């Protein structure tokens, strides 16, 4: 018994490490978004490449689509971009880009340089639509179903894991 007390700090520490280990696999930022399960905020914005045309949420009723918030000034967007380009090639789900608080010229140049995975990009120059969607960091990605309801939200860059394990299975299910 007597020698056990010297081991007590070690025992407490081992328990602590076990909890920290479990904690690592969790995401504290995965706060349930108030938008989940709610209709996606409506917008009607000019398209990036054809400024005379607008794209509205109403146009997308009946399709399952992804809304990816990006900007030419966003460095983390470069991390997820190849993944989006690949996703576009696979032609599973249309991805619409929301060019957030960006100069349209810079946005177009950026897409020309890095590849354009978007079915269409729309320009949210003053960030109003971003506010409606509760964007607090770029990039963010929303999955919206046929009825126009937000089903999933990714904060920060898309990761291959999130895409494979969460988004694509959900897309397939919603497309049925």
């Amino acid at each position: 018994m007597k020698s056990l007390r010297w081991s007590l700090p070690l025992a407490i520490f081992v328990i602590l490490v076990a909890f920290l280990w479990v904690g690592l696999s969790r995401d504290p930022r995965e706060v349930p978004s108030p938008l989940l399960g709610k209709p996606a905020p409506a917008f009607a914005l000019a398209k990036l490449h054809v400024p005379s045309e607008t794209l509205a949420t109403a146009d997308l009723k009946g399709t399952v689509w992804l809304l990816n918030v990006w900007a030419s000034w966003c460095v983390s967007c470069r991390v997820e971009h190849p993944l989006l380009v690949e996703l576009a090639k696979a032609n599973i789900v249309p991805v619409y880009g929301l060019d957030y608080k960006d100069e349209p010229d810079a946005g177009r140049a950026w897409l020309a340089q890095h590849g354009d995975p978007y079915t269409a990009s729309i320009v949210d120059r003053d960030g109003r639509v971003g506010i409606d969607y509760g964007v607090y960091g770029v990039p963010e990605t929303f999955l919206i179903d046929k009825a126009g309801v937000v089903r999933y939200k990714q904060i920060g860059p898309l990761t291959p894991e999130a895409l494979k394990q969460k988004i694509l299975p959900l897309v397939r299910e919603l497309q049925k």
Partner: protein
Amino acid sequence: MIPEIGQLALALALCLALAQSSLGLAGAARGDRSWMVAVRPAAQGQFVFVAIAFGCLTYSFVANDFTVAYVASNSNSALPVAYRVTGVWGGHEGSILLWTLILGVWTVGVTFFSRHLPDDMVARVLGVMGIVSTGFLLFTLFTSNPFLRVFPAPADGRDLNPLLQDPGMVIHPPMLYMGYVGFSVAFAFAIAALLGGRLDATWARWSRPWTTVAWAFLTIGIALGSGWAYYTLGWGGWWFWDPVENASFMPWLTGTALIHSLAVTEKRGAFKSWTVLLAILAFSLSLLGTFLVRSGVLTSVHAFATDPARGVFILAFLALVVGGSLTLFAWRAGKVGLGGIFGVVSRESTLLANNILLIVAMASVLLGTLYPLFLDALNLGKISVGPPYFDAVFYPLLAPAVFLMGVGPMARWNKASLPDLWTRLKWALGVAVVAAVILPFVLGHWSPLIAAGLFLALWVVVSSVVNLRTRLTGSHRHGLVAKLAANSPSYYGMLLAHLGVAVFIVGVTLVKGYESEQDVRLDLGQTVDAGGYAFKFLGVVPGPGPNYRALTGTVEVRKDGRLIETLKPEKRIYNASGQTMTIAAIDIGLFGDRYVSLGEPLAADDIDGAWGVRIYLKPFIDWIWTGAFLMALGGIVAVCDRRYRLAIQRRTGAIGPAASAGAPAD
């Protein structure tokens, strides 16, 4: 080219750190002198290469080299040069490099100030520090390399987080890290002592100055961070019980316990294994803090970029270093014995009680910080623990600890008598109680919490005065100066630090008790009254800044019709990131601050119309930071004690010379 040199320098530093740890530990174990003498140069070389790497990164920032991904994420060509330099530690990778650099500074410090120590002790200490360096260099190179290039390079950087573009941020992280990392020295001494089986008063005397200096830095670092939050977050708060703050506060509480426990070990040879445990704990909590802040297991208002891969690395490193140390402790501590025995009423017992209160307080902060994580891990939901928990748990624990601060220095070592303590302290107690009951009436509003806070502060001050008086009247020397000079700097350091605690308590108590906050709507030229001051709003003008657009408000503060200050609170919109920052304008006063910050214009975009303005009165708030600086200053004064500078001969006795010369309190 320069970033590649930096990366190469890091790799070389890693090699030297490996040499430093293996030569140090193996050399001491084998008793091989030729290995041990190589440890110092290896350690110094390691520092030189880390410094080169740090210089390279700084150069990349100053030269706006946006081909470096880290620079592109944390700087901008319009960023003023001073902030480009401090931008080096504005993000994760650079912070870790700064951590490693400061560890190097402490290591080099040990190589210079260890001439009088036995070779095997130095070899082991540097060896242990080398292991820590190795871990952090591996971490930098494999998961957080600040020198990675990005291709194609962005035309301009994303800019430094506006929150960090502030003079307070220039010195807050280095100070904090000096404290955090400084505990690695005490840790290394403790591990070396366990390995070498020499755990005695000499060991405590070697560890003490290092620990005290690290603690002083940590105190200043925390105070700077708190002051920075006060004037840049625009809420007028000074402490939020945020996980990042708690991460620095836990090592501080443990470090405070450690410096007191080391005093007992040095003077009386008691508390040996407890002191060793505290030394391990203080540094472990620094590492844990790094893990919590860097791994993303907890969310925080400080929202640094986080990455699970880094979390796995730090956790593995934490498990290795702390788990290894605690295993060593479990194995060896039983053999070093408990040290001296002491009476139930004695200075030892008051210090022990204080130690336990501090550690329980630390554990309650740890529990509160990790509680959300525990619940999440057990699938019991996601919650956050806020100030109500911490306030409810923390104050009741620290109040008795502060009370004991008055008793401890008056109690004799080994055995004190309660009637004697009562005779000596009853007047102090009476004065503190009476003044604490009356003062709140004078200040305008009586509440039990204000009276309790003031009592503790007054008690510390009055009992310190009684203590000094006893010392002076008991002295055989003639003349006040001679009597004052008879006491050691470490004694005055203790008085100063305790006085700092009292000043701090006054600040906390009065700001909590008497602060007033108003969120008002003000039209151009409108005046609002708060606490005897008239605040007149004179509108908002736009203007350019170096890398932001500013909206500057003007508010005149009048007392009895006389203009005392014109405040210019600002809102800044940073060009590169589009982020908005609120810079409060504060009229600082000894007895309280007048704090004004801009809210939003009532009609969006109409900056010439009415504005929401926050007007806060913060009585005595600056005492909080003044108190913290006094504590740190006390630590510095204590370290200036002559006995640390004397060449210390090897002593095996448990009792140092100071203890036999009377009862020096520190």
